[in-house]
């Protein structure tokens, strides 16, 4: 599909530049005054001098172009600045949040990759049969589930009604779990968000796998494999699956990007302390620096996912290799 050439590197650079610039412009174009976040709820009781001081302290008084240059400079230095709201180092906040988002996105991706590939393969193998069709219909239906609604239902049923899983957070707050207990605790908290994300990811993987398999199944070299006397299983696993995996991997990268972005909704529903919640809070609180930094992290994560797919592609498909 696309060997990693200079063109792609340009593409990544272009995306990066656009994202960073967008990142800078968007929050500033938004109406609203960030002052409230700097001084807390009592901003109305501050004198104008106090306000000016605060604005100056965070550099909001500089000309826009200066702010833009400063912004680029700090991005390049990986200095994401301080949050208006909590006055903390943003990189620190992000590093705190990132693992949680990664946990649920990667976790759900892993599960959905396995389940999706297996089901997709099964469906392609049984193409046109009843089991294929019901799976296919089921998957298209799953795709139409609103994610937040699914999350709400899961909380209603499994947390509130049944009390099996906690309904919020990533760990039991202030608990003293050690070792396995701690891991178990994390797992218990991650299960519902992961289930939600997984349910939403599976259909895509499934459909991609199924289509890729069908495409491969119809190709000439499969007939060659059969003509060699290869058994059905060998044809499926040795030839079809191996060829179908490249598009699936690409899809997984895209899906990762999507799930990562989708964490905004899931983490809001589950009060999960990840990046998605951070950006949502930052957007509603007009916390410019956090918003910018988080969006940037999202972009970089998506870029990395795509890059990984680009790098994996030639490994999976030798036609893409550089001679």
């Amino acid at each position, binding site marked *: 599909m696309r060997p990693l050439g200079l063109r792609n590197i340009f593409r990544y650079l272009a995306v990066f530049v656009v994202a960073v610039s967008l990142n800078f412009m968007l929050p500033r174009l*938004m109406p*609203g005054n960030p002052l409230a976040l700097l001084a807390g709820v*009592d901003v109305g009781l501050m004198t104008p001098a106090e306000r000016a001081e605060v604005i100056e302290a965070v550099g909001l008084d500089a000309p826009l172009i200066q702010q833009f240059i400063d912004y680029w400079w700090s991005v390049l230095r990986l200095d994401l600045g301080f949050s208006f709201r909590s006055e903390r180092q943003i990189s620190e906040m992000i590093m705190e949040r990132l693992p949680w988002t990664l946990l649920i996105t990667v976790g759900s991706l892993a599960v959905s990759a396995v389940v999706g590939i297996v089901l997709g393969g099964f469906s392609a193998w049984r193409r046109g049969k009843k089991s294929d069709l019901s799976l296919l219909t089921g998957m298209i239906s799953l795709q139409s589930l609103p994610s937040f609604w699914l999350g709400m239902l899961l909380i209603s049923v499994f947390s509130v009604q049944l*009390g099996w899983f*906690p309904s919020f*957070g990533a760990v039991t707050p202030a608990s003293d779990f050690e070792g396995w207990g701690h891991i178990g605790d994390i797992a218990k908290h991650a299960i519902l968000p992961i289930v939600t994300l997984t349910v939403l990811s599976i259909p895509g993987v499934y459909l991609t796998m199924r289509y890729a398999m069908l495409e491969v199944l119809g190709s000439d070299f499969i007939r060659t494999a059969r003509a060699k006397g290869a058994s059905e299983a060998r044809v499926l696993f040795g030839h079809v699956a191996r060829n179908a995996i490249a598009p699936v991997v690409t899809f997984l990268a895209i899906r990762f990007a999507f799930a990562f972005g989708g964490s905004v909704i899931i983490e809001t529903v589950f009060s999960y302390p990840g990046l998605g919640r951070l950006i949502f*809070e930052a957007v509603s609180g007009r916390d410019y620096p956090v918003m910018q930094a988080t969006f940037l992290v999202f972009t970089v994560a998506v870029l990395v996912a795509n890059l990984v797919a680009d790098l994996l592609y030639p490994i999976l498909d030798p036609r893409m290799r550089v001679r």
Partner: protein
Amino acid sequence: LTLVAAACSSESDPTTTTVTGGDPTTTLAGDPTTTTAATPAEPVVVRAAITGDEDTINPYTYISGFPGWNLLMMQYDTLMQLDADGVPQPWLADTISANGDLTEYTLTIVDNASWHDGTPLTVDDVKFSLDYFIEKATGRFSRDLRGVVAIAVSGDNGIVISLAAPNPAFDLVALADIPIIPRHIWEGIDDPGERAFDISTNVGSGPFMMTEYESDQFYRFVSNPDYFRGVPAVDELVVIVFADDAGALAAIRSGEVDVSFERVSPEQIALLDAQDPLDISQGPEFTTQMINFDASKAPFSDVVVRQAMSLAIDSQDIVDTVYLGAATVGSPGWVHPGKPAYNPAVEATFDPAAANALLEGAGYIDTDGDGIREFGGEPMSFDMITNSSDSLRLRIAELTAAMLGDVGIEITVVSVETATWEEAVWPGFDINNGRNYDIAVWGWSAPVQANTIRIADLVNSDPGIGFLNLTGFSNAEVDAISSQLLTEADPATSQQLIGDLQVLLADQVPFVLLAYPDGAYVYNSEVYADWEFIAGQGIVSKVSLLPASARP
């Protein structure tokens, strides 16, 4: 419409429904041995929910007035402490006296208080704290001390604070608000604006010490066994940060937390109360919900229009429908009916027929028959701007829009980001910047109302005095009375002035006050039940966590 929700029953007792344990008069402060020996049982651990992180809780880094300040005060003490009725009582200062014209306050400091690190708390710390806040501005605390001209230590534990002008509310605004900080820790810190403070600098004198903090996750407070008012009734307080109310609510229902420091929204009150072992503590608070309009421009500059709007809006309906009864109907004179300064002669009236008559009489007539009145050729169609993140406000907007529509004023509800909404109503948080709205749903937090004489802030047309006059309201008579009120030292005169002003405001309608929502808090009574509802403040205070004997 007569909608009365189940929770209305609690209205019969407007102050509090919480059982306050023991008899407050029996035990005196300063006897730490009385409660400890008797209970060797399980440590009491209370897990509390808040929404939104408050950062490291010290006087320079906490974030919100509520519950941030309240959490701050778990670790620190004020010179005075509000009692259940919201009246300041002696605390770190055991005597407080003021001179006749209320410009000089003399205090003596208790001698048994000490810092968490064991250092005794002295009058020097008090003076240091006040000086420090004046010098190193924090916003809230330095503002509290705005009128202070001199602070002098007198004797071993006496301190005299002199004010430039009379300030009848100094005890409430400053003495019960400012945390006393340890001199030996803070004197070395030049720039508190730097984020130099972490848990290690959080040395206070309060009943709790913060021992652990995970950003956006939780705070852990452990009790201070050497607390000068007695050993706290709760051994450990874990404050858990939630993304939103719904998460907090889910957690309390599932037993994952024991109390929520967030107000329970009205629809949940009956539901939660019905669930065992959850209980609700409910009482009046001083937050307000109101309709603002730009009274500086037509047609709102016409008092008739404002009066008509006030008559057209059924505040009782809003209390019943939106708050399901868990609110007090707004007084058109601004002052909460639970306050001593309240003038009972002022009452909200709902009379759309009268409103229509007023408008007709003043020439606001629907000439083209589309159901919308015109003024100066323009239809009376306005945007009502509201804050989208507050669903109750959205509903209020929806309801009032319909009510105003019934008297021929067409309202389109526009819901926007909090920041956009603030920017429109209060650009740059400075009324000198003017206003960019027609009508808005607005509300003030409790402190604005806490001190009744500060009504001038809201209605005086001089921006220096009425710096919260967001509606651009101006009336000479109101200006005169409100200015006088600010410096009036005589309580009786002051009371009279406030009473008159309320009548005046009810007639002039600088804004339409809809309701004072009640505070309602849910807690798990099996874990800890002794919550104290402080009028206007709710249950989130250290008082709730102290044994009855140690409470003010």
